[in-house]
């Protein structure tokens, strides 16, 4: 008697599963049809937007007044902007074209962007409570070069989400060039390596080659700002900041000191050598290695006593640098060194230096 019961349970399960599969298949079919339909509608609307946009751009006259065709097109765009799907298409089409062309058409497109109400939606996004919507709003303002929302965006310079902050920082640099760097005055939060790379990329694109005074940011309270500006000093060879660079060698932050050593090494600042030698014993290992990189460039025979003290240093890199510098600046002192030691690394370095040409 138990067998029919099990059998009926199995059959019930099978029937339920078959029904579920049929429902899912129908659902999938409807979903696919909907996606295809939406895609078709989007393509059709994209073509329409493209045609209208081109018509608008080419029907512009010298006068500041809009032509009848332009007025009609604006009306059509305004109608489309109220739908989220169509608004996205309009916005993307505008962006696609604005990336590819230059000249007066870009100005006309920016005017059109405001005229049809897209600016209103951008401001709405900037006032959103959701961080991702704010980031999209800033991106839109950046892409369409809307400087009217500058004050609103300045509120996001220290936003808790780095995605929002990043967009805000890029907005200022892309739209206002060197002047946009003023946001660094108010920056209280960190700038990640990735942020710095992106900002440096933007700075490189700035066409205005005015000499920018970066000294005020080299004494900023935010260590990240100092490190970022040190990258700019290096990138643009701002040698006039030399005195501040020397003071940064005494900065309270280890990272800033390290970056400052890297920067003075880039410029081969001789004065830095004396400062670094005087505080060498209290430095971290990274700073010591960085200092030896500077010495490698600027050491002279007056440094032989200092250098010889580190030829037996426990760190391989320092030991190697000390020996190779000594060989270069004072060959007699180098030759007078013991060539054999209990330290295998020392022996290898000596062997390498003695039998390598050109070192």
């Amino acid at each position, binding site marked *: 008697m138990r067998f029919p019961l099990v059998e009926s349970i199995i059959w019930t399960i099978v029937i339920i599963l078959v029904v579920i599969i049929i429902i899912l298949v129908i659902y999938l079919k409807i979903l696919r049809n909907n996606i295809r339909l939406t895609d078709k509608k989007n393509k059709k609307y*994209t*073509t329409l937007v*493209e*045609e209208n*946009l*081109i018509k608008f*751009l*080419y029907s512009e006259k010298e006068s500041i007044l809009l032509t009848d065709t332009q007025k009609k097109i604006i009306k059509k765009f305004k109608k489309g902007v109220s739908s989220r799907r169509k608004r996205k298409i309009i916005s993307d*089409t505008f962006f*696609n*074209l*604005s*990336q*590819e*062309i*230059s*000249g007066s*058409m*870009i100005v006309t497109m920016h005017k059109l962007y405001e005229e049809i109400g897209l600016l209103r939606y951008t401001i709405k996004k900037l006032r959103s409570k959701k961080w991702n919507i704010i980031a999209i709003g800033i991106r839109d303002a950046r892409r369409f070069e809307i400087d009217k929302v500058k004050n609103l965006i300045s509120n996001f310079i220290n936003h808790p989400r780095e995605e929002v902050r990043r967009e805000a920082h890029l907005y200022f640099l892309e739209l206002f060039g060197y002047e946009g760097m003023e946001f660094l005055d108010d920056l209280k939060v960190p700038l990640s390596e990735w942020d710095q790379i992106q900002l440096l990329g933007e700075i490189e694109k700035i066409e205005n080659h005015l000499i920018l005074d970066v000294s005020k940011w080299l004494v900023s309270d935010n260590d990240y700002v100092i490190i970022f500006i040190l990258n700019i000093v290096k990138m643009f060879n701002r040698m006039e900041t030399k005195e501040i660079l020397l003071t940064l060698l005494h900065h309270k932050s280890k990272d800033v000191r390290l970056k400052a050593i890297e920067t003075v090494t880039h410029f081969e600042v001789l004065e830095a050598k004396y400062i670094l030698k005087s505080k060498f014993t209290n430095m971290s290992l990274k700073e010591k290695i960085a200092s030896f990189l500077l010495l490698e460039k600027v050491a002279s025979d007056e440094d032989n006593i200092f250098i010889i003290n580190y030829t037996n240093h426990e760190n391989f890199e320092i030991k190697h640098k000390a020996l190779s510098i000594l060989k270069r600046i004072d060959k007699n002192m180098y030759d007078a060194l013991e060539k054999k030691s209990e330290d295998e690394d020392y022996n290898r370095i000596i062997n390498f230096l003695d039998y390598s040409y050109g070192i």
Partner: protein
Amino acid sequence: MSNKKKIVLAEDNSVLSLLLKFRLEKDGYQLFIAVNGKEAIDFIETEDPDLILTDVMMDYVSGLEVISHVRNQLESKTPILVFSSSGQEEMVLKAFNLGANDFMSKPLSPNELSIRVKRMLM
């Protein structure tokens, strides 16, 4: 038979190709728009254009392959103008080595393009 000069424009950005089509047709040329290199080659083979405008980076067949096809397979001397974006300088050099005649970097000015096209078709 129309005696308008024929131009094949290979560009994957539909709105840009529409804008350029509008502009160049206004200047009196007959335009054939290709959305990728493969379509461009088809147009070039069937229409025998007076000028070819091509983007360097495109789907399926790149602008470089289009130039190579025109110069090596078809052995045609039709002038070719290449569009490139910033950071594609090496591609532009390759395009010139393959036989391109001129280049314009994006973002491009439609007015400048119009002048260059006129000059190349003189």
